[in-house]
């Protein structure tokens, strides 16, 4: 087996070819896509990165987070503040950013896991902490409070490549987030095959049995939370320097947390490619809906005065309901089987 084949294990020949072609297409995107398509693609990879992080918690270790925006937000605010206040470049700032996100994850994990009361507790805690931090930042004037926190960008920053300061042309952001998302995929692949991955899945399937087999449940759950929140923190740093503006209402909004879950649910919770596959379906779909509405308004089919703010989310919600009801394992395993992208019951 070639190293690539070994790495992706159960991918079939067709799967490898199709995946390779798709990857090539994405690598060449700046040459064939418009700037609009690039913006959408950046969003896709950004959400795929967060989705991968969320999926690590739930899909691998069985821990449901509904406050993932918290870890993203902490990463974003930390790196942005350190850059603005003391000029710390994000390439270094990512360390304290990830550190704080991990600390927050560990705190929530500790509070939630000490008691054998059930997974719901942890999920509720993640939301509660996300809200708590949002309200706190709402009142912290040196973080811009509700007015928002802004990073200075000059016109010159929009060209070239300055990876250390995360300043440069859109192409730089595109390749960076692509590398991060694919890096997360590779990391998850590696983790899943490691001791951690085995223990996590055992805990997910039956915590009591895992413990009887010598797995320290608390410790390995904490590892899962730490790694996941760290990955989300990295995504946050990217967000801060890509958007250059941070508002608590937007960054910590519960909708962000729910957005983080959607790709994985659609793609398939617990699968390796599910999160990225799901976001590749959902994000463009959302864009198409928005575009279609604009078009319909333009043609006068819909009264342009009507606000259709909620429509996109309404459709998203509906999709998730359909998926949970009819394809609870997600679309990726189904697509794989249909297109024979994987070899059946292959040994890794």
């Amino acid at each position: 087996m070639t190293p690539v084949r070994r790495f992706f294990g159960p991918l079939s020949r067709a799967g490898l070819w199709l995946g390779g072609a798709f990857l090539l297409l994405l690598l060449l995107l700046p040459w064939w896509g418009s700037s609009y398509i690039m913006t959408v693609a950046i969003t896709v990879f950004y959400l795929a990165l967060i989705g991968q992080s969320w999926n690590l918690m739930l899909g691998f270790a069985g821990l449901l987070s509904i406050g993932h925006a918290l870890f993203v937000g902490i990463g974003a605010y930390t790196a942005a503040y350190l850059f603005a206040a003391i000029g710390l470049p994000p390439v270094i700032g990512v360390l304290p950013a990830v550190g704080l996100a991990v600390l927050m994850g560990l705190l929530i994990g500790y509070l939630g896991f000490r008691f054998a009361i059930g997974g719901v507790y942890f999920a509720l805690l993640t939301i509660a902490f996300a809200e708590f931090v949002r309200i706190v930042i709402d009142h912290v004037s040196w973080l811009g409070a509700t007015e928002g926190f802004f990073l200075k960008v000059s016109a010159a920053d929009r060209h070239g490549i300055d990876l250390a300061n995360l300043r440069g042309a859109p192409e730089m952001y595109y390749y960076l987030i692509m590398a991060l998302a694919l890096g997360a995929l590779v990391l998850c692949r590696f983790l899943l095959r490691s001791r951690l991955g085995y223990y996590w899945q055992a805990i997910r399937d039956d915590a009591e049995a895992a413990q009887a087999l010598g797995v320290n449940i608390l410790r390995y759950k904490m590892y899962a939370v730490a790694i996941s929140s760290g990955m989300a923190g990295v995504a946050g740093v990217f967000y801060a320097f890509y958007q250059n503006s941070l508002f608590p209402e937007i960054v910590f909004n519960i909708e962000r947390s729910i957005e983080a879950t959607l790709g994985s649910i659609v793609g398939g919770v617990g699968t390796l490619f599910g999160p990225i596959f799901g976001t590749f379906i959902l994000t463009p779909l959302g864009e198409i809906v928005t575009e279609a509405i604009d078009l319909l308004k333009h043609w006068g089919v819909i009264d342009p005065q009507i606000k259709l703010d909620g429509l996109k989310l309404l459709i998203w919600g509906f999709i998730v309901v359909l998926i949970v009801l009819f394809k609870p394992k997600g679309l990726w395993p189904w697509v794989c089987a249909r297109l024979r992208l994987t070899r059946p019951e292959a040994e890794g």
Partner: protein
Amino acid sequence: MAALLRVDGVSKSFRGLLALNNVSFEVSEREIAALIGPNGAGKTTLFNVIAGVFRPDSGSVHLGGADITGRRPDEICHAGIGRTFQIVKPFAQMTVLENVTVAALHTAASVAAAREAARGFLELLELDAKAAQHAANLTLPDRKRLEVARALATGPRLLLLDEVMAGLRPSETDRMVATLRRLRDDTGLTILLIEHVMRAVMALSEHITVLHHGEKISEGTPDRIVRDPAVLECYLGDQDL
């Protein structure tokens, strides 16, 4: 022979209901011992106290001289006790091989080594043909075997088996009995089992402890136990004995 496991005056009650009352017994090194008694006698509760699921209200549990009372299940596993669950608990979304690999990991140096070790245990329990299947798809007898394979893969000094023969056909029971005896003879493993299948208990065990209503009412060799009037009385009408 030195006692590997020593249970000393263990009592445990749930919401005022006394499940174990001052139970003491020992299991010697390299012995195959059985814990029997009618339903609700407290056998599984006693297992759970030994394995660290419940902390006893009073009394102590020693393994090889070390006090392991009230330690967490994973610590007790590391101390050298492997256990199975009466109601089987497979990792449903993992393959059979992965199930056993999880158990083999904490003694193995690497994942690859653990997988190799796991294959050995699957062969021993005649599960090797089903290694790549998801555990959710196994039949009940196979799940029972998987429980044993996993417990063995943790590399225990003492193996606690909770009704692993239930649901097996007589020929399968005989094979399991043979496997367990061979294990003990080859590796010096000590085994404590809860069993309802008397055919297995009589064939395997060298020492039997009888629980009834949470109290030890008798103990001794199988020959002695079947003649003990107290045991006969509590099993009165039970066709098994």
